[in-house]
């Protein structure tokens, strides 16, 4: 018996990396091909990459770096788009192009934090609820239901109302209304997986609950989580921009797209560029994440393939 295992072990070792992972490679290649053939998914990927690149290196290349932090150049206020100021200037003479580019980094940070916190709260709770069942599940799911029973934006406004307006409080509020979605998703998935034979097998070999949940169940929940996270990045951007617009999130002159539009709306219609370009930036970014999410769902969830 021992010899047999040893032999099997040597056999595995003698295979090189590519040979050992041949099935994974084949699967990834299939994913890549399916994804590449999907025009809108590729567009989404392109837009998201554009956004990420802008957020990563854009702020180093902007023409007027000081304008992002709210300097004042009254002499060139509210100029229409031209060769120097591609997106025009705002009411204190700041370059709108610079502020939109720097805003990409701000937006990315906000979206990552909101989605990240929501996942950190939601995924463990969902796994516990789904795996434990019984009254634990009952309690967690009812609390989740309560949070889902109020329009998210309204609840976020209520929380910001209590904490006071500001970018950090807005992120806290949005994270607090975002996690229930993950609980629902992960709980449903865990519930359907926990009676699979491989879970029984793991248990019969003496694996503890923690090990079963995190090593055997969680990896099988990743695809829906990835898809939801991609969609949620877009939605979180919309949410943060909405609070900024209402004057409850980022406060001007902080270069956040929603807050920019909130000031810019008072300069409509004559100074249209001031609100037009930040808004377009939001649309393009959210569109990118949505299309990417759709594309990912198509490859990760065969049922959704058309």
């Amino acid at each position, binding site marked *: 018996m021992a010899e047999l295992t040893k032999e099997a072990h040597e056999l595995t070792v003698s295979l090189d990396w590519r040979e050992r992972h041949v099935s994974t490679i084949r699967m990834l290649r299939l994913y890549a091909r399916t994804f590449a053939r999907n025009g809108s998914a590729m567009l989404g990927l392109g837009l998201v990459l554009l956004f990420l690149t802008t957020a990563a290196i854009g702020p180093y290349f902007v023409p007027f770096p000081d304008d992002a932090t709210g300097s004042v150049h009254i002499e060139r206020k509210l100029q229409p788009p031209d060769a120097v100021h591609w997106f025009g200037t705002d009411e204190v003479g700041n370059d709108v192009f610079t502020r939109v580019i720097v805003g990409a980094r701000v937006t990315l940070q906000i979206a990552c934090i909101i989605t990240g916190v929501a996942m950190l709260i939601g995924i463990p709770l969902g796994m516990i609820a789904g795996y434990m069942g019984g009254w634990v599940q009952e309690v967690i799911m009812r609390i989740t239901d309560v949070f889902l029973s109020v329009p998210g934006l309204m*609840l976020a406004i209520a929380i910001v109302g209590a904490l006071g307006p500001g970018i950090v409080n807005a992120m806290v509020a949005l994270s607090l209304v975002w996690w229930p979605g993950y609980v629902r998703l992960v709980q449903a998935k865990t519930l359907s997986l926990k009676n699979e034979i491989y879970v029984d097998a793991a248990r019969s070999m003496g694996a503890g609950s923690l090990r079963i949940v995190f090593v055997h169940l969680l990896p099988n929940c990743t695809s829906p989580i990835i898809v939801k996270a991609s969609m949620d990045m877009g939605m979180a951007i919309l949410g943060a921009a909405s609070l900024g617009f209402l004057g409850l999130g980022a406060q001007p002159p902080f270069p956040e797209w929603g807050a920019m539009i909130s000031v810019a709306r008072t300069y409509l219609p004559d100074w249209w560029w001031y609100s037009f370009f930040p808004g377009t930036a939001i649309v393009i970014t959210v569109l990118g994440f949505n299309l990417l999410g759709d594309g990912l769902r198509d490859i990760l969830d065969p049922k959704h393939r058309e």
Partner: protein
Amino acid sequence: MIRFTFKRLMLMVLMLLGLLAITFTISHIVPADPAALAAGPDANVEMIERYRVEYGLDRPLAEQFLVYLGKLLSGDWGKSIHTTRPVWDDLVTYFPNTVELVVFSIAIAVLFGIPLGIVAAVNQNRPIDHVIRVLTVTGVAMPMFWLGLMAQLFFALKLGWFPLGGRIEMMTDPPQAITHLLLVDALLNGHFGTFVDALHHMVLPAVALCFPALASIIRVNRAEMLETLKQDYIVNARAQGLSTFRIVAVYALRNAMLPTMAMIGLRFGWMLGGTVLIETVFDWPGIGLYAVQAAISSDFEPIMGATIVLGFFFMLTNLLIDMIYGTLDPRVREQV
């Protein structure tokens, strides 16, 4: 069905209690010291203590929560610093405007969403399907408030087709309040001019508000129609020589409607949240604008009032959808 309804109702009561627990937590526990907040910035320790006793903030939390519930039930929802009126009176004034806007908006979304979904499904992968897909994909990605602003810029300021914002013209006398729904009141009083004017003011905000819902309804309806059109009974109907119109409208639509209904309900609820943005853009005197103005000045009681009202109607919508679902599909009844 009666048992199902009863269970759902009980669940809703529980959820409502949960919602009140949230608003209670936000207003009584989150601020570091609510008494200091209520007493104002210039208050000394003695005044703060007096406030603490007066508002019962020195008692146990559970007792405070019961007192809070009792107050809400007796119609004492507090007072708005902003409008200096009782919150309950404010809500009665503003909420009907929101209801009108949201109902009108969801009606537009359904009226256009279902036919467009069918057209897209029947013409799968033809140019018209692609046009509709572009519409739905951008519809979901569009920040509603920005769409509203751009609609104002183009249709109100450039073309002058619609008023910029507000509920009715400044000079128009509002009709005598019977239902508090302006459109209904105008009709009941026979003020057709006011009715048309009010409707005219509603078009732009309602269209801007309906876009995400419209997009989702089209999407779901298209997907469900595609699924249904593949079924054997549709092939059979086709083989028997029925017209495409009859197959789609009579045979397929009914089965595709169930998930679409669920989406309509879901989106109606979302609109109750989205209306906050649209009301701010269009200066619409609804509960959303009221809540935002209160939130900016940290005026608690109106925000909590608005949250409770919106949450209650959100739950009511979900309950109705579940009931419709339960009536149409017996399997749903078993699950609860």
